[in-house]
């Protein structure tokens, strides 16, 4: 098993932490993992992206040309990464503010309106967990229980009370998938 993932969006959308949770969950399942951000002074605008690889074997390049799965949270990310998905791979995008929809025929495309759902339900900070729930429904690369274990490991103790809320978001996100 090997899954090569790109997650991209605006700084502030939780791109890097979504990747971190994925990577940590992989670690919980004894996979080899790599998490490689395109780093920069994000707080001052611009886009953020992270390449996450989960694999049974030792990972060679943490930098990739093409991906199995792309999780794209804004228009510039779709423009940049749509063409870098392997044929047969998956593109999962958030519909908020998208003006040009992805249209490749040789990949699976899913729309997940996590931002809207989060806004409506006043859980803006859970947007990335909603998205992750959807992603794991589509590509069940790690088990939800390991995601929760991972969260426990990474969140500081004082935030552990938020874990049930995260779990709910993961479940809710799985319901938002619209296959195009």
């Amino acid at each position, binding site marked *: 098993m090997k899954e090569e993932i790109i997650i991209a969006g605006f700084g502030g959308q939780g791109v890097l932490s979504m990747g971190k949770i994925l990577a940590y969950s992989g670690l919980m399942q004894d996979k080899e993992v790599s998490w490689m951000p395109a780093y920069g*002074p994000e*707080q001052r605008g611009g886009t953020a992206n992270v390449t996450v690889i989960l694999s049974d074997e030792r990972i060679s390049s943490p930098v990739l040309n093409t991906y199995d799965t792309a999780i794209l949270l804004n228009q510039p990310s779709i423009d940049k990464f749509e063409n870098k998905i392997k044929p047969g791979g998956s593109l999962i995008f958030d519909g908020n503010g998208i003006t040009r929809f992805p249209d490749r025929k040789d990949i699976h495309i899913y729309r997940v309106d996590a931002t809207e759902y989060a806004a409506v339900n006043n859980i803006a900070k859970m947007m990335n967990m909603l998205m992750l729930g959807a992603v794991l429904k589509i590509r069940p690369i790690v088990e939800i229980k390991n995601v929760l274990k991972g969260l426990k490991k990474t969140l500081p103790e004082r935030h552990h009370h938020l874990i049930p809320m995260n779990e709910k978001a993961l479940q809710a996100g799985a319901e938002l998938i619209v296959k195009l």
Partner: protein
Amino acid sequence: MNIIDSANLVYRKTPVMTDLTMHYCPGCSHGVVHKLVAEVIDEMDIQDKTIGIAPVGCAVFAYKYIDIDWQQAAHGRAPALATAVKRLLPDRYVFTYQGDGDLAAIGTAETIHACNRGENIVIIFINNGIYGMTGGQMAPTTLDGMKTATSPSGRSVPLNGYPLDMTKLLAELDGTCYVTRQSVHSLGAVRKTKKALRKAFENSMLEKGTSVIEVVSTCNSGWKMTPDESNKWMVENMFPKYPMGDLKDR
């Protein structure tokens, strides 16, 4: 009644600013100071005679926003560049624009010696008590107890030393003619800072020495507060250590 008519114009963006959107975080003080510098250049009509020296710090791209000739200096070395530029072009207005890491840490020697030589330049010193650009590490001016990426439980004097009042030192030097501390958190403060900047630019041609304008500023990203909270925190916490007003005017 049509109020919005050029005849009724009270304030608009000076044309000395370019049309690019600044890369600063929302509410960052850098933007206000940029605007003031541009306005002073505009009002003094010295756009063709002014050369700016940009630092390494959040303001590294100042050259994209103020429409004059610029040089971008290595971290801390802006006063060295300005020295050479002004000495070779004595009828030009030359200013540096520097953060507290740039001016008061790595550039300490260059700053002190340019001021001590009394170079006829303007030094604009944005003291936001933090390294904004690199993600909010401790600066020499970081207050005691203030949390930053490299003082996560707050600056501690035994560990990290005292907050440094660099401007006070510069006022002590024979080479400085005008040393003042200002801010830009309110209408009044902005007006005063602009006046100070104008005076400093005017000093450039009077061969009186170096003018230093510290602007006590906010870095809401680094401070992890909203812009408004930052302003309030600044007034309450920064001002006592870095009090407003002229330190020297001769």
